[in-house]
Structures are given as C-alpha cells and as structure tokens.
C-alpha cells in the first residue's frame, strides 16, 4: 500500500544538474609510455648530428614531456584521494619530484634525466597498485 503510493507520486522525469563526469579510468602506463618516448628521443638525438633532425627531436620531446606531466597531474588530483596517503605517505613529494623531473627532461638531452623520470613514473605506478588501482580503475581486469 505504502509502496504503491510512493510509486504513484514519484517523478517519472529525470532532470540533470549536469556536471563533467570523471571517467574513473586511470593508469600510470599512459605517463610511462610518453616518458619512454622522451627516453628514446634523447637516445636518437645523441645518435644523430643533423641539425634539422635534432631540432625536430627537441620539439617532439617537449610535446611528449607535456603529456607526461598531464597524465601525472590527472592521476594526482583525480585518482589519488586523501585516504591513499596512509598507504603512500610520500605521495605528494613523489608527484612533486616526478613533475619537476619532467621539466628537467624538457631542458635536458642527458639520458640519465630521462631514465630518472622513468623510475619516478614507476614509483607512481607502485603507488597506484598499492592503493588498488588496477582493480578499481581499469575495465574488466586490464592490465592482465
């Protein structure tokens, strides 16, 4: 009886108080792939003396590095939540170092800098895994 009254008076039409929808899919692999691009570009840069080639390499490295920074930023402010600080106490410092390292890679053609960025992205990946990232943010069990 009560239930049928509720069903009768309940609105049938939904109005949306629209917000952007965070898709909830996060994976540091995105940042890792762009960081690997930077690494390879630095390698190729060193192996080629051609000025035009080197100019292009620098430009592309700049672009890829921006993407690394973007993907790291999205993880930092969209995926990670305050409660994750318990599992990863150095989270903020880690992101600070990693995004600073991106800036360093932009300005550098030293392979060691690009390698250091890969390591920092891997640390972010470990933090993502430590907070249950793979099961919470990827669809149907990816990555395998």
């Amino acid at each position: 009886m009560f239930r049928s009254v509720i069903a009768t008076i309940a609105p049938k039409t939904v109005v949306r108080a629209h917000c952007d929808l965070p898709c909830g899919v996060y994976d540091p692999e995105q940042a890792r792939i762009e960081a690997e691009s930077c690494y390879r570009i630095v390698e190729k840069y060193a192996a080629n003396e051609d000025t035009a080639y080197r100019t292009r390499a620098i430009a592309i490295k700049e672009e890829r590095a921006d993407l690394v920074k973007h993907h790291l930023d999205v993880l930092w402010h969209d995926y990670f939540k305050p409660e994750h600080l318990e599992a990863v106490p150095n989270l903020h410092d880690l992101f600070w170092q990693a995004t600073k390292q991106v800036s360093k890679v932009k300005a550098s053609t030293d392979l060691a800098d690009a390698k250091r960025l890969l390591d920092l992205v891997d640390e972010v990946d470990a933090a993502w895994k430590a907070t249950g990232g793979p099961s919470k943010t990827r669809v149907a069990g990816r990555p395998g």
Partner: protein
Amino acid sequence: MTSDAGSTGTQAAVDPVADPGGGREVQRTLRERLRGPWRVTVAEGSMLPDIAPGDWLLIDPTTRRWPRPGSVVVFREPVTDDLAIKRVRARGGERVPFNGGYIALGEGEAWLEADATPAIAAAAGYGPPIDSDRFGPVPVDLLVGRVWFRYGPWKRIGRIGRIGPPTTP
C-alpha cells in the same frame, strides 16, 4: 480560457511592469505545455547544496518566459538536448560578466548558472558543473518550466525560492 488552448499563446496578457525581463515567449502551445512535466527528480550534483541528486521537485510547465533572476528552471540543454536544471542568473537585455568581458543577452535569452562551485561538486563526487559558461545563453524556446516546490525527501519538503545572483567583483 479553453478557446486559448491550441493557439500559440500570444493572446496571454503579459504585464511588463510586473515581469520586465524576457521578451520572447515559449512558442509551444498551451496544450503542449500542460502536458508537463509537472514532477521531476534530480540527477547529478551541480545544484548542490540547495538541490541534491534524488530530490523530487514540482515544476510549473505553463511558464512562457524566463522567470526572474535567482529562480530555478528546467530547460532543454543546448547541444545535448537533455532535460536539465539550473538557476537563472540574467535575462534578455542584461549583460553578464564572461571571460574578462561581458556578454549582452539578446531578447528571450537567459544566462543560467549552477549553484555548486567546482569544489562543492567535487566533494560530492562530480566533475565541474556545466552551465552557461559552457553552453552560452539559452533561448526561451528551450525553457520547460519553473521549479517551485520540493516534495521529497520528507525532511527537506518546502518551497524552492529565489536566491539573488551573487555579487560580482
């Protein structure tokens, strides 16, 4: 008034002193407007804290013109055509600050705003609110009705009043 049903509604007397804004009227006939919706429920959080997801609202679908600034309205969102809810910030003839300058609203247009700040929306698990900052001025043809009462949940039953537009710097 039955003879008025089916007309374009232009015979209705509009008192320009009592209701100066707006201008153009909803082109749908009275019969179309009477079909409603009269009751709606809210999804998503861009109208927090005043109007929450899941609220049951009564609307007046016979409204032909944008109600006064501060009123809450249901409308067809430009681009998506979704039924959406927002608050009227300004109407035709007024201008609103936008992107460092101003936008002057044309006749029959309204500028609609979300109540929730990005921080309030984020705290409730939503992304930044989408309003006229994104989809621009809304023509009155897209107006569906004025929200006037909340009849659920039980503890928050009451009138949905006007809230004056925020003072801008």
